[in-house]
């Protein structure tokens, strides 16, 4: 880089009205105190889409609208929902619809909000989707720890049954479907769709081998199965009411619609925000008063996780990238589950890295060796470094163990494992070691963090927070 290059002045979004906006599609009831009740939902236009779909549209037409919308799945992989539904082998019945509400990735809490604050919207989306894919039964799988979501969904299901919105001959039509509510026993890995299916079948939640790559061909009870995320299906009523094209007109052509991002970390107002997909940038999200209102204490962003704990980290040079799937993929990370974690310049990168790795090591299902053994190994090396017992060779060792889990440590990750959980633990290591190698070296040489960062308490390492200034 030559000295002549003048860094462009970053855009300023700190004043209201400077960021693109769009209609709220699925968070309209977040501020409505009774939005989660049947009455509150119906009063605000609820279940009109279901009536429209069942009485005015064929399943194919509903499917077509979803295809036209080009809505990408919101569970992590970003696969277009309409295309996925099309993978169902024709004429194989029964088929099932499974709704993935196991949301457990650190920083991800959008599905929980949707289930707690607007359960009927989800149920309406589920019944419409079941109609579109001709599912015999739908299974709503909710994360074990989400007590309020379970309670509200259970109530909503009962109310929907009572109003003939689920069950036999829905709204007097020929269409019948049951929706079964199940909850997990507290395992992150059950969010992986094939592990979720195992769990639904009463087995230990461990991912199945691929291929088949999609449960659409062989899923629950080895029958064709569609697995969709809570947010994905919550959008379906809007699409049916307003049309797939209307959805497609929002956001960017490569990332259509509005999308919810859950921002946490060192911003002034963490929360879930429904933003125009594909055109909103990270900087807009962090700085705009409509959203997070800036990094706390006016500090600068040191790094951020753009799409869930499994994603590669981004840094200040990525702040002006739009939240657009192909753009982010090309930049070497992902939007994943839409969980953005912001780390300001007081963050201890070694500790942050440990935090994420520790999560994955504890949540590994234990099925494959590189994940089960490797993630724990990485976690222990990091913890040892944090405890002041690091050795110079540990940094290369971290990368080398990572290599055994994810050959090449590239993006998108290659894997020696069955599912992407193992390589997920490599992302924070690769990100932190490549960018902040000196912080690791400092720990190893001096037994403590670099000056100016805050190290959170870590069980077994420190008694409490230590601030190095």
């Amino acid at each position, binding site marked *: 880089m030559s000295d002549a290059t003048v860094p462009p002045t970053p855009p300023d979004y700190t004043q209201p009205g400077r960021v693109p906006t769009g209609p709220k599609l699925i968070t309209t009831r977040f501020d409505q105190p009774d939005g989660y009740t049947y009455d509150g939902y119906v009063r605000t236009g609820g279940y009109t889409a279901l009536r429209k779909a069942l009485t005015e549209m064929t399943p194919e037409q509903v499917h077509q609208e979803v295809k036209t919308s080009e809505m990408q799945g919101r569970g992590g992989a970003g696969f277009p929902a309409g295309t996925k539904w099309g993978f169902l082998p024709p004429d194989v019945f029964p088929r099932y619809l499974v709704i993935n509400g196991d949301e457990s990735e650190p920083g991800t809490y959008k599905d929980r909000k949707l289930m707690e604050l607007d359960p009927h919207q989800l149920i309406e989306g589920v019944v419409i989707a079941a109609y579109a894919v001709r599912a015999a039964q739908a299974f709503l799988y909710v994360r074990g720890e989400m007590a309020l979501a379970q309670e509200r969904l259970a109530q909503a299901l009962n109310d929907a049954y009572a109003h003939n919105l689920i069950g036999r001959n829905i709204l007097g039509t020929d269409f019948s479907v049951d929706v079964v509510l199940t909850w997990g026993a507290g395992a992150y890995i059950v969010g992986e769709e094939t592990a979720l299916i195992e769990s639904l079948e009463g087995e*230990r939640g461990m991912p199945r081998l691929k291929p088949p790559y999609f449960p659409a061909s062989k899923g629950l009870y080895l029958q064709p199965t569609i697995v969709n995320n809570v947010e994905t299906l919550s959008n379906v009523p809007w699409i049916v009411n307003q049309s797939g094209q209307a959805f497609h007109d929002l956001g960017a052509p490569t990332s259509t619609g509005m999308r919810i991002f859950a921002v946490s970390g060192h911003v002034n107002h963490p929360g879930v925000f429904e933003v125009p997909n594909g055109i909103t940038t990270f900087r807009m999200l962090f700085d705009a008063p409509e959203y997070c209102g800036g990094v706390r204490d006016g500090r600068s962003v040191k790094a951020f996780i753009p799409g869930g704990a499994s994603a590669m980290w981004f840094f200040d040079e990525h702040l002006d990238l739009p939240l657009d799937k192909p753009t982010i993929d090309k930049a070497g990370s992902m939007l994943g589950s839409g969980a953005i974690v912001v780390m300001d310049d007081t963050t201890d990168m070694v500790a942050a890295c440990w935090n994420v790795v520790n999560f994955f090591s*504890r949540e*590994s299902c*234990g099925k494959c*060796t590189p994940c089960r053994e490797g993630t724990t190994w990485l976690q*222990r090396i990091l913890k*040892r470094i944090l405890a002041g017992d690091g050795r110079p060779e540990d940094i290369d060792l971290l990368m080398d163990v990572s290599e055994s889990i994810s050959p090449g440590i590239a993006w998108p990750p290659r894997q020696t494992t*069955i599912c992407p959980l193992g390589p997920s633990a490599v992302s924070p290591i690769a990100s932190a070691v490549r960018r902040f190698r000196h912080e690791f070296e400092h720990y190893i040489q001096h037994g403590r963090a670099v000056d100016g960062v805050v190290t959170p308490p870590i069980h077994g390492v420190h008694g409490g927070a230590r601030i190095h200034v």
Partner: protein
Amino acid sequence: MSDVKTDAPADAAPEPPKKTTLSITVDGRAHEAQPGQLVIDACEDAGTYVPRFCYHHRMNPVGMCRQCLVEVEGPRGPMMVVSCMTPVAEGQVVRTETPGVKRAQEGVLEMLLANHPLDCPVCDKGGECPLQDQAFSHGPGESRYVEEKRHYEKPIPISDLVLLDRERCILCDRCTRFADEVAGDKLIHFISRGNATQVNTFPDEPFASYFSGNTVQICPVGALTATPYRFKARPWDLTQVESTCTTCAVGCRIVVQGSRDQLLRYQGVDSDPVNWGWLCDRGRFNFEAVNSDQRLGTPLVREQGELRPTGWSEALARAAQLIREAVDAGGPGSVAVLGGARGTNEDAFAWARLAHDVIGTPHVSAQLGDGMPVGLLALNRATIDEAASASTIVLLGPDLKEELPVLYLRLRDAAEKRRSRILEFTPKPGGMTRYAWKSIGYEPGTQVGAVHAALANDEIAQQLGAGNVVIVAGRANLAETSAAQVAALGELLAAVPGAKVLPALRRGNVVGAVQLGMRPGKDGMDSRAALAAAADGTVECLILVGSDPLSDVPDADLARRAMAGARRIIAVDALPSPSTALADVVLAAAAFAEKSGTTTNLEGRVTTVGQKVTARHTARPDWMIAAQLAAALGTDLGLESEADVLAAMAELNDSYAEISAAALAAAPDGVLAHVPTTLDPINPPTVAVPDRNSYDFRLVVSRKLYDAAVGTAHSPSLAHLAGGATIHIHPADLDRVGAADGDSVKVTSKRASGVFQATSDTTVLRGTAWVPFNQPGGTVGELIDATAPVTDIRIENL
């Protein structure tokens, strides 16, 4: 083909034979793979061993350990795949030695070793450990793991026979998959997750599987150990010989391992037509009986009421004298020879010659009133493979899980993999019932009617009419004669004339013994008649060849009276039994693994039995005892060695005409003997079974895997596994007699009455009662009259 006319010109290019293999490349070498094969197996065929831990070719691949990663050229360049989950495809290019593959394999091995305790010096597996071996061949050389290893309590018992060391476990899912997929005993499984994942049982529910020993054998590390072998030897001290288990008639192939002239372990050998490498725990662990200090090592003769040890010449002379006295007193027909089903073919052949040709008695039987008429073996015989691939398997016999355990595994597999439908007729639902397409329960004595009714059912008739049918036929109930069972079999065969029959007879070499002449000759008595004749004194001399009427004959009173009535008893045995205790001469026999020879399993498959250790003291094989006894009686049978006997067998017995040492050496899985043509097929009798008085219960008595039989009773690891002899009754019937589970009840048959503890058991059919046979302390034989078609009993609350 010579008379086939063809219009094609003579010089037309012959149609190229249709290729049935797939051409693949393994590390640059061309190889023809079998369709449906997995890459890991194709590579092995091509001479490249891909390291592995979780893959086992008899179980579904799970792709868990990730050790078998290889590169396969795909549409988008080389892809790293697990070779145990990837099927071969035409034109596939496989690379197992690229830097990427090596790096990945080393990475996995390093991780497997990371938490492994590496306590090889004190580990049973050390020296035969796939982890050790593959760490050398495919591992990174040294470990960079300096963190604290995983710690667990070492080891924990997961059953009476198996211990689990979770520190050594590499979580390959082999044991757990075996328990679920192969044995159907899903009692061990993974718990916890991440690095804390471990194999364990449900709380308070041990891994009580009849097949648990297999998990020890297939565990790729020393995580699972079996109590009978633990810390007994190091693999490099063991020597071994291939053999066949003769505990039951399945004839599982094994290696017999030992060191310093002591037996230490049996391991299953994968014989494709028979056991697929599996063994049952009874067969696997009863080597302890051979090592027992109770073993008979020298002959005994009775003197002044006491058995005292003596030399062979005196013992043989005494035995010959007893036989001569009997023949002098009542002719050759006053001698009866019972047994021979526990030894080798050679033993049975020599004894049959002695009995029929030297002594001249027709009263010879290898069964003890607990089997089937020998004509069963004259029927169109099925192999195990034929049974396990038949469209319909009809079960008309004992609970296979209890009596022929590995046959149970094979047939269960056939049902689980949807190759076969099982149609079961049983007086007591058992191990196979849950896998049956239809299980038809019948009250003892009514099986003919049950078969009849089933055949009248359209669905069943259709099923039997389509595809192959194999009938697995044997004795299902010891508290009835075999008559109704034979009649039911006749009924089935008449309806399905093309059906083949797999005899479900239990004793290790019963089929060989019968085929080789241990069966009644012209006008000869079967064992029940012979025992009755002994009881009333017409049979003067009983010769027991490895048989123990007092334990094995269902009618206890008959056995007791026979043993009391026979004036002269000669017993040939390797272990003392209630019957040897009453003998006048006891000839000490060499036990299994102390002699070589051949055996015949229930299909008629002849395989070798190997000698691993020298016989105890002066004990000798049964065939040699027969030859020496013949000599003492003045006849030279010309049998000096096992080879002599084998040659004579082939010469004199058509069924065995093709059996020779060379033929057996060329066919490690054995050679099928021909179905005997000199036997008359069973002749379905007409049976008159009395109606059951509605206050009575009809008795079912059958065997459990673990009982008081000598081999089990003298194997300390197994002896305590025999359950009790309680009477099992359906809870509703138990109510009816006013008793509760665990109560003592009085049980009365026409023969006798006794007190039993009652067990409430929903698997027992209403109106019947079930008692396991020959359990320690059991007295159910007292209730049974061997001549009565069925046994009805009254049950009263005490």
